[in-house]
Protein backbone atom coordinates (compact mmCIF):
# COMPACT_ATOMS: atom_id res chain seq x y z
CA UNK A 1 0.00 0.00 0.00
CA UNK A 2 1.21 3.44 -0.85
CA UNK A 3 1.46 5.53 2.26
CA UNK A 4 4.35 7.63 1.09
CA UNK A 5 2.15 10.44 -0.13
CA UNK A 6 1.59 11.58 3.44
CA UNK A 7 5.26 12.45 3.67
CA UNK A 8 5.63 13.75 0.15
CA UNK A 9 2.65 16.07 -0.06
CA UNK A 10 2.20 19.25 1.90
CA UNK A 11 -1.49 18.47 2.57
CA UNK A 12 -3.08 15.34 3.96
CA UNK A 13 -4.63 13.06 1.38
CA UNK A 14 -7.25 10.77 2.85
CA UNK A 15 -6.82 7.09 2.06
CA UNK A 16 -9.39 5.60 -0.27
CA UNK A 17 -10.19 2.53 -2.33
CA UNK A 18 -6.99 3.15 -4.28
CA UNK A 19 -5.00 1.86 -1.30
CA UNK A 20 -6.51 -1.58 -1.82
CA UNK A 21 -5.74 -1.90 -5.50
CA UNK A 22 -2.43 -3.37 -6.53
CA UNK A 23 -0.68 -2.55 -9.72
CA UNK A 24 -0.29 -5.57 -11.93
CA UNK A 25 -1.84 -8.99 -11.80
CA UNK A 26 -4.18 -9.52 -8.86
CA UNK A 27 -3.32 -13.23 -8.75
CA UNK A 28 0.33 -12.48 -8.07
CA UNK A 29 -0.18 -10.05 -5.24
CA UNK A 30 -0.16 -10.21 -1.46
CA UNK A 31 -3.85 -10.94 -1.12
CA UNK A 32 -3.83 -14.10 -3.21
CA UNK A 33 -0.79 -15.45 -1.38
CA UNK A 34 -2.52 -14.69 1.91
CA UNK A 35 -5.61 -16.52 0.68
CA UNK A 36 -3.53 -19.60 -0.14
CA UNK A 37 -1.71 -19.31 3.17
CA UNK A 38 -5.05 -19.10 4.98
CA UNK A 39 -6.22 -22.28 3.30
CA UNK A 40 -3.01 -24.03 4.32
CA UNK A 41 -3.37 -22.81 7.92
CA UNK A 42 -6.90 -24.23 8.12
CA UNK A 43 -5.90 -27.56 6.55
CA UNK A 44 -2.86 -27.77 8.81
CA UNK A 45 -4.90 -26.98 11.92
CA UNK A 46 -7.48 -29.65 11.29
CA UNK A 47 -4.88 -32.23 10.21
CA UNK A 48 -2.85 -31.54 13.34
CA UNK A 49 -5.88 -31.77 15.59
CA UNK A 50 -7.32 -34.91 14.06
CA UNK A 51 -4.04 -36.81 13.85
CA UNK A 52 -3.58 -39.31 16.68
CA UNK A 53 -7.20 -38.82 17.66
CA UNK A 54 -8.18 -40.92 20.63
CA UNK A 55 -11.28 -41.73 22.61
CA UNK A 56 -9.89 -39.54 25.36
CA UNK A 57 -8.98 -36.34 23.45
CA UNK A 58 -5.63 -34.68 23.94
CA UNK A 59 -5.36 -30.90 24.06
CA UNK A 60 -5.02 -30.30 20.32
CA UNK A 61 -7.81 -32.70 19.51
CA UNK A 62 -10.03 -30.94 22.00
CA UNK A 63 -9.39 -27.58 20.31
CA UNK A 64 -10.22 -28.95 16.87
CA UNK A 65 -13.26 -30.85 18.06
CA UNK A 66 -14.70 -27.89 19.92
CA UNK A 67 -14.35 -25.71 16.80
CA UNK A 68 -16.05 -28.41 14.75
CA UNK A 69 -18.66 -29.09 17.39
CA UNK A 70 -19.59 -25.46 17.79
CA UNK A 71 -20.35 -25.02 14.10
CA UNK A 72 -22.15 -28.36 13.99
CA UNK A 73 -24.39 -27.69 16.98
CA UNK A 74 -25.06 -23.97 16.84
CA UNK A 75 -25.17 -23.43 13.08
CA UNK A 76 -25.75 -26.67 11.17
CA UNK A 77 -28.20 -28.42 13.49
CA UNK A 78 -30.17 -25.32 14.39
CA UNK A 79 -30.58 -24.10 10.82
CA UNK A 80 -30.56 -27.16 8.55
CA UNK A 81 -32.37 -29.46 10.97
CA UNK A 82 -31.85 -32.91 12.49
CA UNK A 83 -32.38 -34.82 9.27
CA UNK A 84 -29.71 -33.45 6.93
CA UNK A 85 -27.26 -31.44 9.00
CA UNK A 86 -24.43 -33.96 9.23
CA UNK A 87 -23.93 -34.02 5.46
CA UNK A 88 -23.30 -30.28 5.31
CA UNK A 89 -21.36 -29.81 8.53
CA UNK A 90 -17.89 -30.34 6.95
CA UNK A 91 -18.66 -27.70 4.34
CA UNK A 92 -19.85 -25.21 6.94
CA UNK A 93 -16.85 -25.86 9.21
CA UNK A 94 -14.47 -25.32 6.28
CA UNK A 95 -16.20 -22.10 5.24
CA UNK A 96 -16.28 -20.75 8.78
CA UNK A 97 -12.64 -21.47 9.54
CA UNK A 98 -11.42 -20.31 6.13
CA UNK A 99 -13.25 -16.98 6.30
CA UNK A 100 -12.27 -16.49 9.94
CA UNK A 101 -8.56 -17.11 9.35
CA UNK A 102 -8.50 -14.89 6.28
CA UNK A 103 -10.25 -12.09 8.13
CA UNK A 104 -7.88 -12.39 11.09
CA UNK A 105 -5.02 -11.67 8.67
CA UNK A 106 -6.40 -8.12 8.55
CA UNK A 107 -5.23 -7.39 12.11
CA UNK A 108 -2.15 -9.63 12.33
CA UNK A 109 0.93 -7.39 12.41
CA UNK A 110 3.10 -7.62 9.27
CA UNK A 111 0.39 -9.40 7.26
CA UNK A 112 -2.21 -6.68 7.85
CA UNK A 113 -4.41 -7.36 4.89
CA UNK A 114 -7.70 -9.25 4.82
CA UNK A 115 -7.94 -10.92 1.40
CA UNK A 116 -11.70 -10.47 1.41
CA UNK A 117 -11.29 -6.71 1.35
CA UNK A 118 -10.64 -7.32 -2.35
CA UNK A 119 -14.10 -7.86 -3.74
CA UNK A 120 -13.07 -10.44 -6.32
CA UNK A 121 -12.22 -13.04 -3.67
CA UNK A 122 -15.56 -12.47 -1.96
CA UNK A 123 -17.26 -12.94 -5.34
CA UNK A 124 -15.43 -16.24 -5.72
CA UNK A 125 -16.71 -17.50 -2.37
CA UNK A 126 -20.25 -16.38 -3.14
CA UNK A 127 -20.27 -18.03 -6.58
CA UNK A 128 -19.13 -21.27 -4.99
CA UNK A 129 -21.92 -21.12 -2.41
CA UNK A 130 -24.48 -20.16 -5.08
CA UNK A 131 -23.53 -23.26 -7.10
CA UNK A 132 -23.66 -25.43 -3.98
CA UNK A 133 -27.07 -24.40 -2.70
CA UNK A 134 -28.71 -24.45 -6.10
CA UNK A 135 -27.05 -27.79 -6.90
CA UNK A 136 -28.19 -29.28 -3.60
CA UNK A 137 -31.74 -28.09 -4.21
CA UNK A 138 -31.87 -29.37 -7.80
CA UNK A 139 -30.43 -32.71 -6.72
CA UNK A 140 -33.10 -32.99 -4.02
CA UNK A 141 -36.17 -31.78 -5.91
CA UNK A 142 -35.40 -31.81 -9.63
CA UNK A 143 -35.07 -28.59 -11.60
CA UNK A 144 -38.72 -27.56 -12.07
CA UNK A 145 -39.81 -28.44 -8.56
CA UNK A 146 -36.76 -26.68 -7.13
CA UNK A 147 -37.69 -23.48 -8.95
CA UNK A 148 -41.17 -23.85 -7.46
CA UNK A 149 -39.77 -24.29 -3.96
CA UNK A 150 -37.63 -21.18 -4.31
CA UNK A 151 -40.06 -18.86 -6.05
CA UNK A 152 -43.62 -19.75 -5.04
CA UNK A 153 -44.25 -18.75 -1.42
CA UNK A 154 -46.72 -20.83 0.55
CA UNK A 155 -50.19 -19.64 1.40
CA UNK A 156 -50.26 -16.73 -1.01
CA UNK A 157 -53.49 -16.09 -2.94
CA UNK A 158 -53.17 -16.94 -6.62
CA UNK A 159 -54.06 -13.43 -7.67
CA UNK A 160 -50.82 -11.86 -6.38
CA UNK A 161 -48.57 -14.73 -7.49
CA UNK A 162 -47.59 -12.89 -10.72
CA UNK A 163 -46.18 -10.18 -8.47
CA UNK A 164 -44.59 -12.48 -5.90
CA UNK A 165 -42.89 -15.02 -8.18
CA UNK A 166 -40.55 -12.57 -9.96
CA UNK A 167 -39.75 -10.89 -6.65
CA UNK A 168 -38.95 -14.18 -4.95
CA UNK A 169 -36.85 -15.24 -7.93
CA UNK A 170 -34.94 -11.98 -7.78
CA UNK A 171 -34.39 -12.19 -4.04
CA UNK A 172 -33.62 -15.92 -3.74
CA UNK A 173 -31.61 -16.60 -6.89
CA UNK A 174 -30.07 -13.33 -8.05
CA UNK A 175 -29.60 -10.99 -5.09
CA UNK A 176 -28.40 -13.63 -2.58
CA UNK A 177 -24.87 -14.16 -3.95
CA UNK A 178 -24.46 -10.40 -4.46
CA UNK A 179 -25.34 -9.46 -0.88
CA UNK A 180 -23.43 -12.45 0.49
CA UNK A 181 -20.20 -11.36 -1.19
CA UNK A 182 -20.67 -7.63 -0.74
CA UNK A 183 -21.45 -8.02 2.97
CA UNK A 184 -18.16 -9.78 3.63
CA UNK A 185 -16.23 -7.45 1.34
CA UNK A 186 -17.73 -4.21 2.62
CA UNK A 187 -17.19 -5.06 6.28
CA UNK A 188 -13.56 -6.02 5.75
CA UNK A 189 -12.93 -3.08 3.41
CA UNK A 190 -14.57 -0.44 5.59
CA UNK A 191 -12.86 -1.67 8.75
CA UNK A 192 -9.47 -1.67 7.12
CA UNK A 193 -10.08 1.76 5.59
CA UNK A 194 -10.93 3.14 9.03
CA UNK A 195 -7.70 1.71 10.44
CA UNK A 196 -5.66 3.26 7.62
CA UNK A 197 -7.46 6.57 8.01
CA UNK A 198 -6.84 6.87 11.73
CA UNK A 199 -3.24 5.69 11.48
CA UNK A 200 -2.15 7.92 8.59
CA UNK A 201 -4.29 10.84 9.79
CA UNK A 202 -2.85 10.53 13.29
CA UNK A 203 0.72 10.52 12.07
CA UNK A 204 0.03 13.48 9.80
CA UNK A 205 -1.55 15.48 12.61
CA UNK A 206 1.26 14.69 15.04
CA UNK A 207 4.26 15.24 12.81
CA UNK A 208 3.33 17.33 9.79
CA UNK A 209 0.34 19.57 10.46
CA UNK A 210 0.69 22.98 12.01
CA UNK A 211 -1.85 24.53 14.33
CA UNK A 212 -2.84 24.82 17.98
CA UNK A 213 -4.76 21.56 18.42
CA UNK A 214 -2.94 19.15 16.12
CA UNK A 215 -1.10 17.18 18.82
CA UNK A 216 -4.16 16.34 20.96
CA UNK A 217 -6.13 15.64 17.79
CA UNK A 218 -3.38 13.30 16.60
CA UNK A 219 -3.33 11.46 19.93
CA UNK A 220 -7.12 11.19 19.80
CA UNK A 221 -6.83 9.83 16.29
CA UNK A 222 -4.44 7.09 17.41
CA UNK A 223 -6.68 6.23 20.38
CA UNK A 224 -9.65 5.97 18.00
CA UNK A 225 -7.54 3.77 15.74
CA UNK A 226 -6.86 1.37 18.61
CA UNK A 227 -10.56 1.29 19.54
CA UNK A 228 -11.48 0.62 15.91
CA UNK A 229 -8.95 -2.21 16.02
CA UNK A 230 -10.91 -3.80 18.87
CA UNK A 231 -14.14 -3.26 16.93
CA UNK A 232 -12.47 -5.04 14.02
CA UNK A 233 -11.84 -8.07 16.24
CA UNK A 234 -15.58 -8.32 16.85
CA UNK A 235 -16.48 -7.72 13.20
CA UNK A 236 -14.04 -10.39 12.00
CA UNK A 237 -15.66 -13.14 14.06
CA UNK A 238 -19.19 -11.84 13.44
CA UNK A 239 -18.76 -11.75 9.66
CA UNK A 240 -17.32 -15.27 9.56
CA UNK A 241 -20.31 -16.40 11.64
CA UNK A 242 -22.83 -14.51 9.50
CA UNK A 243 -21.32 -15.90 6.29
CA UNK A 244 -21.62 -19.46 7.63
CA UNK A 245 -25.09 -18.84 9.01
CA UNK A 246 -26.35 -17.49 5.68
CA UNK A 247 -24.81 -20.41 3.80
CA UNK A 248 -26.62 -22.78 6.14
CA UNK A 249 -29.85 -20.82 5.67
CA UNK A 250 -29.60 -20.96 1.88
CA UNK A 251 -28.91 -24.71 1.94
CA UNK A 252 -31.80 -25.28 4.30
CA UNK A 253 -34.09 -23.20 2.09
CA UNK A 254 -33.06 -25.20 -0.96
CA UNK A 255 -33.66 -28.47 0.87
CA UNK A 256 -37.01 -27.44 2.33
CA UNK A 257 -39.91 -29.69 1.58
CA UNK A 258 -42.67 -28.27 -0.55
CA UNK A 259 -44.37 -25.45 1.29
Amino acid sequence: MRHGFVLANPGFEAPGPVNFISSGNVLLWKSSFLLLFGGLVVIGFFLATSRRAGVVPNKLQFAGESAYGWVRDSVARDIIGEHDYLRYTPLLVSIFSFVLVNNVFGIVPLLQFAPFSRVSFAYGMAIMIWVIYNGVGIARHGFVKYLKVQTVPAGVPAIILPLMVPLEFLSNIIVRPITLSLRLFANMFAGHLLLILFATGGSYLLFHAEGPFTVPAGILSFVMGILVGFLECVVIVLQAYVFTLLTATYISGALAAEH
Partner: protein
Amino acid sequence: MASGTGTLNMVGYGLSAIGPGIGIGLIFAAYINGTARQPEMQSRLQPIAILGFALAEALAIIGIALAFAL
Protein backbone atom coordinates in the same frame (compact mmCIF):
# COMPACT_ATOMS: atom_id res chain seq x y z
CA MET B 1 -13.82 26.20 6.93
CA ALA B 2 -11.79 24.97 4.05
CA SER B 3 -13.54 24.69 0.75
CA GLY B 4 -12.93 21.67 -1.38
CA THR B 5 -14.06 19.68 -4.33
CA GLY B 6 -15.37 16.17 -4.31
CA THR B 7 -18.51 14.15 -4.69
CA LEU B 8 -21.57 14.12 -2.48
CA ASN B 9 -21.65 10.32 -2.67
CA MET B 10 -20.41 9.86 0.86
CA VAL B 11 -22.95 12.33 2.24
CA GLY B 12 -25.69 10.41 0.45
CA TYR B 13 -24.32 7.17 1.79
CA GLY B 14 -24.33 8.59 5.29
CA LEU B 15 -27.98 9.54 4.91
CA SER B 16 -28.89 6.14 3.50
CA ALA B 17 -27.14 4.36 6.36
CA ILE B 18 -29.68 5.86 8.80
CA GLY B 19 -32.33 3.37 7.68
CA PRO B 20 -30.37 0.16 8.26
CA GLY B 21 -29.01 1.71 11.47
CA ILE B 22 -32.50 2.12 12.87
CA GLY B 23 -33.44 -1.35 11.63
CA ILE B 24 -30.46 -3.03 13.28
CA GLY B 25 -31.18 -1.11 16.49
CA LEU B 26 -34.77 -2.38 16.51
CA ILE B 27 -33.66 -5.97 15.86
CA PHE B 28 -31.20 -6.04 18.74
CA ALA B 29 -33.65 -4.19 21.01
CA ALA B 30 -36.16 -6.97 20.37
CA TYR B 31 -33.48 -9.60 20.93
CA ILE B 32 -32.43 -8.06 24.25
CA ASN B 33 -36.06 -7.72 25.31
CA GLY B 34 -36.82 -11.30 24.45
CA THR B 35 -33.74 -12.57 26.26
CA ALA B 36 -34.50 -10.46 29.32
CA ARG B 37 -38.02 -11.83 29.51
CA GLN B 38 -37.11 -15.43 28.82
CA PRO B 39 -33.39 -16.07 29.31
CA GLU B 40 -33.78 -19.75 28.34
CA MET B 41 -34.79 -18.65 24.82
CA GLN B 42 -31.45 -16.92 24.25
CA SER B 43 -29.92 -19.71 22.16
CA ARG B 44 -33.03 -19.87 19.97
CA LEU B 45 -33.23 -16.11 19.49
CA GLN B 46 -29.56 -15.54 18.70
CA PRO B 47 -29.45 -16.98 15.14
CA ILE B 48 -32.71 -15.22 14.33
CA ALA B 49 -31.34 -11.90 15.56
CA ILE B 50 -28.06 -12.30 13.67
CA LEU B 51 -29.93 -13.30 10.52
CA GLY B 52 -32.20 -10.26 10.76
CA PHE B 53 -29.16 -8.10 11.39
CA ALA B 54 -27.48 -9.50 8.27
CA LEU B 55 -30.55 -8.87 6.13
CA ALA B 56 -30.98 -5.28 7.38
CA GLU B 57 -27.28 -4.70 6.91
CA ALA B 58 -27.59 -5.73 3.25
CA LEU B 59 -29.20 -2.36 2.52
CA ALA B 60 -26.24 -0.48 3.94
CA ILE B 61 -23.91 -2.73 1.95
CA ILE B 62 -25.69 -2.10 -1.33
CA GLY B 63 -25.41 1.58 -0.41
CA ILE B 64 -21.66 1.48 0.15
CA ALA B 65 -21.15 -0.42 -3.10
CA LEU B 66 -23.14 2.19 -5.02
CA ALA B 67 -21.42 5.06 -3.21
CA PHE B 68 -18.08 3.89 -4.55
CA ALA B 69 -19.34 2.72 -7.93
CA LEU B 70 -21.46 5.67 -9.06
